């Protein structure tokens, strides 16, 4: 397939595929809402708890617990897959669909961000950074539907931070294990414990920063919500019949606060997480040691091939 033929944008088939892809984006979120409605127990007062547990399996070390975070993450992933497929559906060199411009904008922005922050050597990491941003932002944003944000679960953000930590370590070890070990004792050997803690604090701080921001937003939202219903009950409780039970004061203010705590904070944290990933990973490469090591290896290889000859 050298060049895809220009798709007939108005054909029934094209539209049917579009519809299926849009359904792929929306249905997982709808399913989550249904699931949430079905399984949430009726509760009074402020309830601040972690993710709801859906299933539990026996496993070595710890039981595998399938909670809301996992289910929601998977749903978000399916939605993102649908979004990707939708945006790239009907791509042509002449850009027939408007969505192609969006897709190209996203790709070029991510590529530009990665190239400018990590350098051209890391340009292949653009999809990874895009995935981090998308997963983090959409995971945070599904709380707009009243769903549990997977990013409000420390396990989720810690998993991502752990992956970033592995990447950092992978690039740090490029300079050689011994060089890395020596580096821990710089500038003076007394710093060794602090340096060691510093290594491990990176993923932990990243995980907790993200998790804490999202969870605190959710907690504040819940607190304000319950406070406003309490206030509503005491001020407007005299209204006749069921009108007295409706928390009128909860209309409006929580939505305004949600723009900051859910939308702004969620997107911001996604960006910060991606930014920290880029800076930490690209800053981890010991270029000089790595070059010296490559040089050494090359010489060794030449020597070996000479002695073999």
């Amino acid at each position, binding site marked *: 397939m050298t060049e895809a033929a220009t798709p007939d944008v108005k054909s029934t088939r094209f539209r049917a595929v579009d519809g299926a892809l849009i359904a792929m984006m929306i249905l997982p979120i709808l399913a989550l809402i249904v699931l949430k409605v079905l399984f949430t127990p009726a509760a009074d007062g402020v309830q601040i708890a972690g993710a709801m547990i859906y299933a539990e399996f026996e496993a070595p070390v710890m*039981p595998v617990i399938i909670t809301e975070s996992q289910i929601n993450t998977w749903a978000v992933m399916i939605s993102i897959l649908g979004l990707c497929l939708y945006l790239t559906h009907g791509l042509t060199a002449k850009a027939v669909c408007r969505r192609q411009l969006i897709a190209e904008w996203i790709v070029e922005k991510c590529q530009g961000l990665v190239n400018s922050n990590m350098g051209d050597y890391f340009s292949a990491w653009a999809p990874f950074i895009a995935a981090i941003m998308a997963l983090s932002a959409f995971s945070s944003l599904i709380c707009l539907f009243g769903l549990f944000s997977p990013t409000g679960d420390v396990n989720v953000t810690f998993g991502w931070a752990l992956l970033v930590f592995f990447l950092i370590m992978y690039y740090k070890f490029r300079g050689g294990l011994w060089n890395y070990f020596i580096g821990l004792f710089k500038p003076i050997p007394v710093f060794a414990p602090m340096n060691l803690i510093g290594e491990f604090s990176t993923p932990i701080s990243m995980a907790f920063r993200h998790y804490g921001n999202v969870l605190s937003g959710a907690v504040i939202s819940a607190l304000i919500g319950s406070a406003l219903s309490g206030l509503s009950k005491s001020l407007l409780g005299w209204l006749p019949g069921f009108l007295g039970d409706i928390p009128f004061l909860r209309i409006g203010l929580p939505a305004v606060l949600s723009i900051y705590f859910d939308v702004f904070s969620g997107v911001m944290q996604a960006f910060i997480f991606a930014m920290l990933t880029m800076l930490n990973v690209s800053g981890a490469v010991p270029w000089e040691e790595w070059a010296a090591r490559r040089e050494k290896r090359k010489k060794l290889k030449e020597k070996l091939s000479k002695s073999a000859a």
Partner: protein
Amino acid sequence: MQNLSVISVNIWNVLISLVNLLILTWIVKKFLFKPVMKIINTRREAIDADYAQAKAAREQAEENRLNYEAAMSAARQTSDQIIAEATRTAEYRSNEIVAAARDKATDIRRQAEADAELERKKAEDDMKHEIADVSARLTGKLLEREINEEDHRALIDSFLNDLD
């Protein structure tokens, strides 16, 4: 349904989320970046091809212009040469004609001179004749005797010839 406590670390959940991110990276790469990059590259190649074509066309035009100019200057040179040639030929021819005319004139003059000379000689001869005749008749009359006219003429001729 139970809830997880707000902070609780479960290794499996951490691993699941790690793998989720890897899978999503793969998804984003395979279904968003690759197709879009392919399209962008296709477009860039098309644009590059267009540019190359335009450049080739411009070069061709430039070459044509140079060729045309060269041909024009060559033609001008040739025409100059032809004119010079023609001028030279005409000059030569005119010289030739003038020379021929002069020759002819000289010839005519010489002819005329010769004719005049001949005429003069003839007249001279005639006059000699006349004189001879007259003197013969005169002598005959004087002598009153018939002498041989032929002898007489010869005598006078020799006399006249002695005069010359």
